[in-house]
């Protein structure tokens, strides 16, 4: 208890240079982007390999994909508004926009889970064909990233609520904002090439 109490201020005093940490995190995000690009590439290569399973035109519901895209784009907007609130040191507004970001993220995941259960009900499981293996691997990897982001928001909101806008927490928020915006960039690739391109006649 005592060590924790004395450790905390020391910890804050030694907070690393935010822009250096953000650069390191950006390089990590680029490597994450390489992972998504390779999963998307294997999807494009395996798209014609539907075997005896159902093809993309029979499976994808573009209106749901449009809703998911809207939810994620709105969450990017609220994440940007949270960043602006942080710049003005308005803690309540920051917490409000963070919670809004989480709600749009939850809506996105909810729609995705509805799609997944619909696919399973129609026998479009990952093992049904090469196309479906690549589809499930890519889309669920993105879904896992968004879910990890949601856990991150809860932890971040709790820390902001309990400890306020200390340099370390501001630094963590900066990295979260980069992570969250990057997931929307990945989703542009997914809705364009998995859903829209996959649905072309």
């Amino acid at each position, binding site marked *: 208890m005592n060590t924790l109490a004395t450790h905390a201020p020391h910890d804050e005093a030694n907070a690393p240079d935010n*822009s*250096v940490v953000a*650069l390191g995190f*950006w*390089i990590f995000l*680029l*490597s994450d*982007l*390489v992972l998504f*690009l*390779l999963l*998307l*590439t*294997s999807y*494009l*290569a395996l798209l014609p390999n539907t075997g005896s399973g159902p093809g993309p035109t029979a499976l994808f519901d*573009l*209106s749901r*994909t*449009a809703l998911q*895209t*809207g939810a994620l*784009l709105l969450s*990017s*907007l609220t994440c*940007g*508004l949270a*960043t*602006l609130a942080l*710049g003005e040191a308005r803690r309540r507004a920051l917490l409000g926009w963070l919670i809004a970001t989480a709600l749009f993220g939850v809506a996105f995941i909810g729609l995705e889970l509805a799609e997944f259960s619909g696919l399973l009900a129609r026998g479009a499981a990952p093992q049904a064909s090469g196309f479906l293996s690549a589809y499930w691997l890519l889309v669920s990897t993105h879904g896992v990233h968004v879910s990890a982001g949601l856990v991150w928001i809860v932890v971040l909101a709790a820390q902001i609520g309990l400890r306020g806008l200390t340099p370390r927490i501001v630094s963590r928020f900066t990295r979260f904002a*980069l992570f969250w*915006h*990057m997931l*929307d*960039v990945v989703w*542009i*690739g997914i*809705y*364009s*090439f998995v859903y*829209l*391109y996959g*649905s*072309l*006649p």
Partner: protein
Amino acid sequence: MTRTQLAAGFALAVGLTVLPFAAVMGGALSRESLLALIAGSGLFQVVVHLRLFLDLRSGGRGTARVLATVFGVLLMAIMLVGTLWVMRDLHLRMML
């Protein structure tokens, strides 16, 4: 990030999302022009996100971010084009 930057980024992103969705769901265009529209608005929207939401620009510490990104994009382009090329070639040879 500024308020104007965020508003402009959001407006552009909405437009660049609605465009390909409306074109594909409307189904009036040919397959080739739809593919060009999807790829074009997707790439443009990625640039909009990087510049306006992720605040990627040169100058100061930003130059290192831009350089890392350009290198990353180069690697990704090699992997994407290389894989599709090899797989297409393999596919064509298997058909013979």
